[in-house]
């Protein structure tokens, strides 16, 4: 639970990422469905030490991927699978924690479309992104000014 004494902010957002992969939908799906295979690519990252990695890939099953970053920060990913159609679609919801702070609750839909001999993977993520960087004290200290300045610098570039 996030600290109730801190003001909250919520941002709803959706993003879509599509990627063409040189492997059949069955093989791409297997990279999500098989724990050992998924471990090889999903959570691995330089600077991340995995603390927990469990996948119970079935409808109602859960997944936990926790890791410690070089900064000492601990990230926790916890998912529940809602819909699984082999080689076609996976739907899961998940929340993310950074240390003790819950930073998002999302619904992720992954679709595998045949594309020649390969696959067009479509990932749609719909999320409530919680208490971002402009939280409590930071807002008082003018983080909004920071965001305004950023937006201006982005508009310029």
């Amino acid at each position, binding site marked *: 639970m996030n600290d109730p004494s801190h003001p909250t902010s919520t*941002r709803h*957002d959706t*993003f879509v*990422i599509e*990627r063409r*992969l*040189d*492997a059949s939908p069955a*093989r*791409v799906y*297997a*990279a999500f469905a*098989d*724990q*050992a*295979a998924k*471990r*090889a*690519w*999903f*959570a*691995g*990252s*330089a*600077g*991340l*030490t*995995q603390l927990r*990695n469990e996948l119970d890939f079935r409808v109602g099953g859960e997944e936990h991927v926790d890791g410690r*970053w*070089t*900064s*000492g*920060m601990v990230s926790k990913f916890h998912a529940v699978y809602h819909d699984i159609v082999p080689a076609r679609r996976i739907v899961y919801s998940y929340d993310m924690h*950074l240390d003790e702070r819950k*930073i*998002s609750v*999302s619904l992720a839909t992954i679709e595998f479309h045949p594309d020649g001999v390969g696959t067009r*993977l479509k*990932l749609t*993520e719909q*999320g409530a*992104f919680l208490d*971002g*960087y402009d939280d409590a*004290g*930071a807002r008082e*200290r*003018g*983080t909004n*000014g*920071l*965001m*305004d*300045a*950023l937006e201006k*610098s*982005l508009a310029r*570039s």
Partner: protein
Amino acid sequence: MHATASQQLDATFAALADPTRRAILARLASGEQSVTALAEPFEMSLPAVTKHLGVLERAGLIERGRQAQWRPCRLQAAPLRQAAHWVEQYKAHWELRLDRLEEFLRASSAAPAKKPTRKTTNKRRTQP
């Protein structure tokens, strides 16, 4: 390249996780300032502020002038651009993941008969 992008996100995350450092960035948004001027509103020692500036500098969020006496601090927008919203972080992480998925599929197609076995299930994987 993946490691660099991922480490950059990690460094940005870590640097922004601290309210004092966010406040320092917010002040720099209005223009460059000296360390002394930056330290003024904070109830902490100059060395403590300097330490925060070091974290921000290593994360690439600020740049410091080279003059010995007056080392003005300037905001660097590029890493912040990516970290400005959680959603951008998520997208960036997904792009990196999908890069790794592509590599994984490419590597495993070289030995298509070899499916990962349950034997490795309980092994913890620590990335270099």
